[in-house]
């Protein structure tokens, strides 16, 4: 079943003498329970594409269908009501939270607004969400700004899964996490997908991460998808120049350290 389909999406920015076709005719579709990975050079339009799908920016052209609805036609209360179905986790956590918010309040808001849990049940639900992302129930009382970068990222993930969405758009969501926490979060995302059929649009520069979690992979370059296919096939033998360059530049773990006297 197709959950999301995007046709010929376009968005361009111009400011002064800088004119950028950030998203330049992108089409793809995503099934329920599927993960589409998106990789591409910095500035190739990945986050813009995410913002268009999330309705945080309006495209100049193209269509988006989500859960059988004309997603771009939804407005006002109708759009707000449906927002719980599509969640996001961004890397740029700066500004993603109110400066004085506590972890608990960040999770309480969506549970209340979208009527996921009653007042009585919310503390228990918050504790459960924190546990799922590897934080302690007691962390609910801490102000978000006092957390480390990786801890804040986990709060953002807990918030995204709190409304039981059908799609989560993740933009470099695990890039700043250490391997243990990252692996745990990736396993959690895969588990949620298996249990609840959630789909992910998973933007990352980390091809090993994309290979671990995404069924299909799209490579973007200057606003376009230049390569698309099964993730393992593409990483094993990329066909586009952009894909090839990204794969060959992956840092390899060299236990012996850097060669002496390089450069």
């Amino acid at each position, binding site marked *: 079943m197709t959950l999301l389909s995007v046709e010929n999406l376009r968005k361009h920015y111009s400011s002064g003498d800088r004119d950028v076709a950030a998203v330049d005719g992108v089409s793809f579709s995503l099934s329920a329970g599927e993960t589409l990975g998106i990789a591409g050079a910095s500035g190739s339009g990945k986050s813009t594409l995410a913002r268009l799908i999330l309705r945080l920016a309006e495209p100049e052209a193209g269509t988006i269908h989500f859960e059988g609805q004309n997603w771009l036609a939804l407005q006002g209360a109708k759009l707000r009501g449906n927002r719980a179905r599509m969640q996001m986790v961004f*890397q740029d956590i700066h500004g993603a939270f109110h400066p004085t918010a506590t972890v608990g309040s960040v999770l309480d808001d969506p549970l209340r607004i979208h009527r996921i849990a009653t007042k009585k049940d919310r503390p228990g639900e918050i504790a459960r969400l924190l546990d799922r992302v590897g934080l302690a129930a007691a962390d609910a009382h801490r102000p978000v700004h006092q957390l480390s970068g990786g801890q804040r990222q986990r709060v953002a993930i807990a918030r995204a899964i709190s409304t039981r969405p059908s799609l989560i758009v993740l933009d470099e969501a695990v890039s*700043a996490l250490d*391997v243990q926490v990252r692996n745990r979060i990736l396993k959690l995302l895969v588990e949620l997908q298996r249990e609840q059929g959630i789909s992910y649009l998973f933007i990352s520069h980390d091809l090993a991460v994309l290979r671990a*979690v*995404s069924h299909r992979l799209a490579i973007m370059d200057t606003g376009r998808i230049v390569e698309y296919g099964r993730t393992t096939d593409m990483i094993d033998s990329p066909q586009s120049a952009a894909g090839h360059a990204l794969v060959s530049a992956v840092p390899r773990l060299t236990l*012996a350290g850097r060669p002496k006297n390089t450069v």
Partner: protein
Amino acid sequence: MTAALCNLSNMTVRYGGRTALSDVSLNLMAGERLAIVGESGSGKSTFVRALAGLLPRGAICDGQVHWASDQAPRLGRDIGFVFQDASASLNPLLRIGEQVAEGAKRHLGLTWQAAYDHAQALLEQVRIANAPAVMRAYPHQLSGGQRQRVAIAAAIASRPSILIADEATSALDTVVQADIVKLLDELVSKNAMTLLFVTHDIALASNLADRIAVFKHGHLVEIGPVADVLSKPRSSDTQDLIAGHFDLTSPPLIAEVATS
């Protein structure tokens, strides 16, 4: 990598009642590339902030930092700092060109014009496409990776002798990341800069660093040359970091999809 640039002894940092760094002692060697790794919340950012004198208000810091030079290095001039959250370190109201040129003008005594030329060259070095136009853009008009690169350019603009980069390349595509790593590497080998590089990517650390320091729960659990730490890790925390690393040959976490 011979003389100690700085020795830190018994550094402890508390935020309120919470100890974020416990009794850390180490020598930072002049001209070395030191990678700092460790799990989330282990105190990496706290450590580098303490070293640079950048702890947030309310943090209590004990211990001694002894610099080999007569005068402690000054932030912005002698120490360049790239924050984990690049966007937070850029002023949203200033054009990119101004932010990068400012440090060069102030600390290198350049004229505005010379500082702008310097800034543009730096943006090109961090692989910003169409640098002249980007000079006139504001931070919100850039992608995450572009902002991260601008923050790196701003940090090296005053030609600091010490560069502290906190997850500075964590959101860059692999091609640009490799270019930045090469640039930082050249700054160390040609300009005798000292590099402190916080990263969660142990593969990146293995390619870039001379030494690796491993943090866990606020403690420095292991430090040594890369080859020693990675091939003969003494601490189980280091072993966990190595075991958790996955690469392009690790088994995927998902089952194959039924082709639709």
